């Protein structure tokens, strides 16, 4: 069901760089897994509503106020930037 083309297409969507070896392995493994998924074809679901996670679903809102975390919070975030210029996050240009 899954050919090398499809593996490359999905890897691209997932933004994953895979080596040739990885692609071959992935094709084999995903094919086996997807074959197993065919089991679900047995289930009649035409009258079934899809699952909803919570037992009761309702919106939880808060007032539209800026939460002031201050210098400290900002610093913790900035510390983790892989590349920065002063307090600015540095990224590749998108032109």
């Amino acid at each position, binding site marked *: 069901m899954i050919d090398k083309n499809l593996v490359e297409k*999905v890897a691209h969507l997932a933004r994953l760089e895979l080596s040739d070896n990885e692609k071959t392995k992935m094709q084999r493994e995903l094919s086996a*897994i997807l074959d197993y998924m065919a*089991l679900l074809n047995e289930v009649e*679901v035409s009258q079934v509503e899809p699952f909803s*996670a919570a*037992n009761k679903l309702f919106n939880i809102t808060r007032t539209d106020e800026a939460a002031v975390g201050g210098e400290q919070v900002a610093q913790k975030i900035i510390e983790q*930037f*892989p590349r920065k210029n002063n307090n600015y996050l540095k990224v*590749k240009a998108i032109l």
Partner: protein
Amino acid sequence: MELQQFSIKQIHQHLLQKDFSARELAEHYLRTIKKEEPEIAAFLAVSEEAALAQAEAVDEEIKQGQEVSWLAGVPGAIKDAILVQGQKCTAGSRILENYSAPYDATAVAKLKKQGAVILGKTNLDEFAMGSSTEHSAFQATKNPHDLTRVPGGTSGGSAAAVAANECVFALGSDTGGSIRQPASFCGVVGLKPTYGAVSRYGLIAHASSLDQIGPLAKNVEDCQIVFEAIKGQDKNDSTSSDTDSRSVNVELKNVKIGIPSEYFGEGLEKATREIIESVIKKAAKAGAKIQEISLPHSKYALACYYLVSTSEASANLARFDGIKYGLSREANELADVYFQSRGQGFGPEVKRRIMLGTFALSSGYYDAFYAKAQKVRALIKQDFAKAFEQVDFIFTPVSPFPAFKIGEKIDNPLKMYLSDVLTVPISLAGVPALSLPVGQDGHLPVGLQIISRPFNEQGIFQIGQQLEKIIS
């Protein structure tokens, strides 16, 4: 005094009586960690200084005559997918190898508020994806009952640490069985709470409609004390809710226990079957009414789980892109930063699951896979709801087999996935379940899975405690 023998309540009494200090207790556990870790490798990081400071703070409070809670001074360990402020949080992955947690997970903040002492972060399969802890990017944890075998996963580090007496309790996370299965493999008690009972704020997300943080401990009472401390609605997690705080009084002689035939099929190993059947007989002897039930859609649960969880994971792991934090590869083009950071930062199992999830959600396949799985999931949830109209608890094995050998399943992903066949349906339905050690296959622990209706953790703990007494 042999300090590791004490339960949480016993520790509490001894601290108040000043038989030993919280600092001495922490030092004892830190020494045990140093001694055991070369073999067990349960910990990714040990926070000795912070732990001793926390312990000393508790000693000071006791000295001042202040009231302290059950967990004050009690040493625990935290799975490295759960944020502890100021400490590294790796999710067992190279992509977060140097990531430092900017805040405490709600569950951790609650433990700290009660004065619990945090000894360190425990090992896990990368991003909580796996069933053996072998998929950790850093180290393989060993099962304390047999060092050639896995501790289970993904909370293998937490389970092994408790089993090896390296801590009194631990926090793990469970998406498809990741607390229950390692608890079963390591012979400790582990709870997957009802979906929503414990806040997921500060848990690195795997599958948001399945993930739950839960406690592991050596006995049911300790497990319950930790659960009570971490549970509760949190404004930072809109899927969290309060459990019913009213006291329940549940006794084996007054309950109906359902035994689903689908969980006792061919794949179940003989010794495990015998042990579980023996416990069921003991429960019957104590007065419980045993009833055969059916959960007819059980056989579809694994396929359903590996579509739903991987789809959600593919979305949740999109944030790891080398831009704001984590591993980042230098490249000429922005897109290459994404491709390379993720390609090099994620391990093979994580990549496999992201691929599966991306595929299942992609145009042309979405209806046949993801949408279909969500409908099958509704049927599985219905199975449990119907069952709980007839019975109060459901008993099953946790795993078809005890701890397998290191390396045994690592080359066959589908075979590894099949380890979860008895735990994933419970996760899909969002109901709570406890893994209780009830016997041994040779030297390998075997766990009983006690399942109940949403928010009936109290009932599960009570039944668990009664069974504990009967079995010992």
